[in-house]
Every structure is written in C-alpha cells, then in structure tokens.
C-alpha cells in the first residue's frame, strides 16, 4: 500500500511511454523490501515522500522545493545542489533532498563494476534514484541528506577513484564524444583533451569564481555528437586544413550500388538506387562538388565541413590528414536573449601536448569574462553586449574573415588610437589652414 495516494501522478502512467512515476514507485517498493539488506543511511520512505510532495505540487499548482543552500563537501564550492522541501513534517523523507553531480567518464564508457559500485553506494547513502545523464552530461544522483555528503564523497574518491562534477558558478563537468576510440572521423583525441583540460582546471571546476556557469565540450569532428556548438560556452570541434581524401574507386562502387550509402543505416526501406547527384552533390551547402569524367571533384576551399558527403560515403571520402580543431565561444540555452550558437573564435589550432596554445585561449577568455562579465552573465551574453571583436582581442588574436558572420552587416570600423598615425591629437591651426569654419 502506497504511503501517499497519488491519483494525479497515477494518470501520468497511463500513456504509452515509460513513466518516471512507475520507476519511482518501483524504487520505493524495492527499498521497502530491501532484499540486499542495505543499511540505509537516509529514510527508507524517501521515494514515497518524493511521490507525495510531487502529487501535492500538482494539486497546488506550485512547487514545494526550496532551491539552493550551503551544502557541499569541504573545500568544494560545487558538485552538490542543496534542495529542501517546505513541508518537512508532511514529507520527512525528503526534508533534505540534495542533488549530487558526479563526473562521467570521457565518452561515457562504463564498466558494469563501476555502475554496480555507484548504485550500491547511492542505495545506501541516497535515494537510489539517478539521472543518467544530466543536461551537461554528468551523472546526477538525486536526493540525500546533508550528513551523507562527506561520507559519500569519501567513498566516491577513495574507493571508486572518481570525483564530483561541477555546479554553480564553476567550470562544469567537461564532456567529450567517443573520439578516436571508435570513430574514424575524429580529427583529434577528444577524450584525451577532455581529460587533460579537466585535470588542468580542477580549481575552476571545484572552486567557483566565475560570474556564472561555464561549459567546455569536445567534439572530435563537425558531426558534433556532443553538440558542443549549441551546448557549451567554449566548444572544441575537430577539423582539418587540407583536402578531403577521395578514393575514386570507392566512389564508383557507391554509384554502382556495390557499397551501401550511409554504412547501410537506411537499408530498412527501399529508397531506390543511390543517386550521387541527388543525394550528395546537390545537397552540398556550398555547392563545391561535381562529377567530371566519372570522377568526383571537390573544391575544398569552399567546404564548410557540413560532413554530409563524408557521412553518406564513408569509404570513399575521408577527413584530411592535417588535423586540429576549431574553437567556438558563447553558446547558451534560452534564459536571457534566447538560445545562442557558438561563434567561431579560432578557425584552426593543432592539438599537441602540452596543449599550451589551447590553454592560452581558454585563460584569455576567462580573464576577460571575469573582468568584464556582470553577475549571472554568460560568456555569450557578454560577447553580444561588447561585441565579438573584444573577445578576439582578449585572446590576442587579430580578426580574420572567418570571424565575419555575414558581409556588410555592420558598416562601422572602430579604429584604435594606436592604429591611427598621430593618434587623436591634431594641430587645429594647421587644420584651419585648409578648412574654414
């Protein structure tokens, strides 16, 4: 028998989709049964009370959570998000219901041993409820009490060799795609760079001093499997500077129907014979491809790395050999001013240990944003307020055509005093010799 009647929540279970209500109910039942004899360190009816408070919120049409708090582990300013309910007598199991963020492994490769350990730990010291993964990409563990935080953190770090993720005005847990580990399109080792930057900027990850949140994401190629261009303040997207490598024999095999396009991904339905003109050449956004004497030609200068042709014909077209990454800045979700995609800051940079060039760019941007950013102002909002030119100057770059989103958009050029011969001072008497009042 459920602790609280939840008619409104029960209705949510009636649809055809998996339901979080059914999942929480199942977890509530499992906790009460306790087949594994877990020594629960937080109330056994935490899941029942979570359903109860949610039902009340639906009934009242308002939240009963108070967000934010002083909770955390010693020395860390992020990783734990305090949550308290405003009806603790009615729902004692969720009087404290803090969220813990845990760093996910790069590329989200798990061993079942790690997952078992993590779930066992969270069954004992938390509600057992998890969110794999949060919007930023980290492991989100939902619901525990303040006294459990240090205990949980000790086991996480000492027994599982893992760490808390980022929250608050911190560098958030960096995320990367699978990168070199499985993907032939990876232009750099995204997992390695993600790991190295995570280690390098531990202080920024755990001790908040930014105006607001800051996210790094690493995409091995412009397919953007972690969608860094939309989801991170600073986005690292693999690219190449030379030409797409073409295997003309394989092109002919695709055209002749010997190799399935898209690696056979759309083979479940008969789409007719592969038509390279219709399915590849005419879809090129910069129209830089054509067939000549049965051979595929590409004007690589015009290629904007949309990746479509490489995706359709992976055996015929391959990424170039002179590889590195582009850095884009300023993407964010819509809280102020609507959502923004990243703007190109560095068109190309090689990815080479010890990554000093990349670190210089990162630190240049941070210094500018920390100095100029208002409280709760994302990097993208600062760029919009002061202009991309300031961001470019902050990292010591000079503007290049790739920084221009569209020509003739803004006709003003603002000269700096040092760029003008004689500066702003002039001899007015000399001027008046040639110009009347």
């Amino acid at each position, binding site marked *: 028998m459920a602790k609280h009647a939840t008619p409104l929540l029960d209705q949510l279970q009636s649809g055809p989709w998996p339901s979080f209500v059914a999942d929480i109910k199942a977890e509530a039942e499992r906790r009460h049964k306790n087949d594994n004899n877990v020594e629960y360190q937080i109330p056994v009816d935490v899941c029942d009370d979570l359903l109860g408070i949610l039902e009340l919120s639906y009934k009242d049409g308002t939240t009963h959570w108070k967000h934010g708090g*002083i909770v955390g582990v010693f020395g860390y300013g*992020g990783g734990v998000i305090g949550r308290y309910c405003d009806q603790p007598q009615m729902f004692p199991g969720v009087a404290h219901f803090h969220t813990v963020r845990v760093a996910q492994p790069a590329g989200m490769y798990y061993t079942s041993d790690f997952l078992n350990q993590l779930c066992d730990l969270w069954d004992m010291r938390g509600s057992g409820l998890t969110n794999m993964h949060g919007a930023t990409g980290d492991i989100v563990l939902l619901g525990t009490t*303040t006294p459990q935080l240090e205990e949980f953190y000790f086991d996480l770090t000492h027994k599982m060799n893992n760490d808390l993720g980022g929250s*608050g005005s911190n560098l958030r847990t960096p995320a990367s795609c699978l990168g070199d580990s499985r993907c032939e399109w990876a232009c750099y080792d995204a997992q390695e760079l993600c790991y190295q930057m995570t280690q390098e900027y531990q*202080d920024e990850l755990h001790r908040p001093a930014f105006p607001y949140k800051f996210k790094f994401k690493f995409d091995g190629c412009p397919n953007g499997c972690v969608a860094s261009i939309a989801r991170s303040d600073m986005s690292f997207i693999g690219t190449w500077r030379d030409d797409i490598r073409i295997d003309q024999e394989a092109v002919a095999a695709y055209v002749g129907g010997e190799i399935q396009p898209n690696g056979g991904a759309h083979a479940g339905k008969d789409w007719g014979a592969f038509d390279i003109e219709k399915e590849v050449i005419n879809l090129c956004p910069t129209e830089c491809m054509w067939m000549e004497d049965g051979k595929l030609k590409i004007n690589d200068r015009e290629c904007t790395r949309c990746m479509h042709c490489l995706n359709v014909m992976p055996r015929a077209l391959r990424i170039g050999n002179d590889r590195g990454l582009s850095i884009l800045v300023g993407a964010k979700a819509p809280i102020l001013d609507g959502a923004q995609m990243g703007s190109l800051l560095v068109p190309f940079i090689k990815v080479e240990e010890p990554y000093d060039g990349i670190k210089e760019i990162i630190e240049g941007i*941070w210094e500018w944003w920390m100095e100029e950013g208002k409280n709760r102002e994302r990097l993208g909002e600062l760029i919009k307020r002061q202009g991309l030119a300031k961001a470019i100057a902050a990292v010591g770059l000079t503007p290049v055509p790739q920084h221009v989103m569209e020509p003739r958009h803004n006709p003003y050029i603002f000269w700096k005093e040092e760029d003008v011969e004689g500066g702003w001072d002039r001899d007015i008497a000399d001027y008046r010799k040639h110009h009347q009042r």
Partner: protein
Amino acid sequence: MADPKDIVIEFIQSKSKQKSKFYFNDLAALFPEMKMRDAKKIINQLVSEGVLEYWSSGSTTMYGIPGTGKQAATEGED
C-alpha cells in the same frame, strides 16, 4: 597591504544589514590591483579557513560568513 581577511570581513559586515550573500565580483572588487584569478585564490583561501562559506543555488554561487542569513537556522544546518 592590510590582511585580506580583514578587508573582506569589514566589507561584508558593512553590508550585513542589506544582505548576507555576495557574488564573487563583489569580493574581488575589494582587491582592484589584483587579477581576478589571483583574487580567486585569496577568497578561496578564506573559504578553506572557514572565514567564508559558499552558498549555491545550483546555477550561481555566492559567498557569505558562516551561519549568517536565515537559511542555516531554518534548515537546521547551523
């Protein structure tokens, strides 16, 4: 230069009637000659020493003197 701890505490106490939590920028502004990332080290040192504590909403982090403000007592965390 005066002890950073005194500078920060004096500032926070002078504002204590209006608010109990401060943004990093408010505190970093007390050290105008310092780069922001150096000011961060000083302020974080004060947190490690227990002079200041973090308060986080989950999206934004603020700093205050431990135990001040209403929340600590309300949640039974003091």
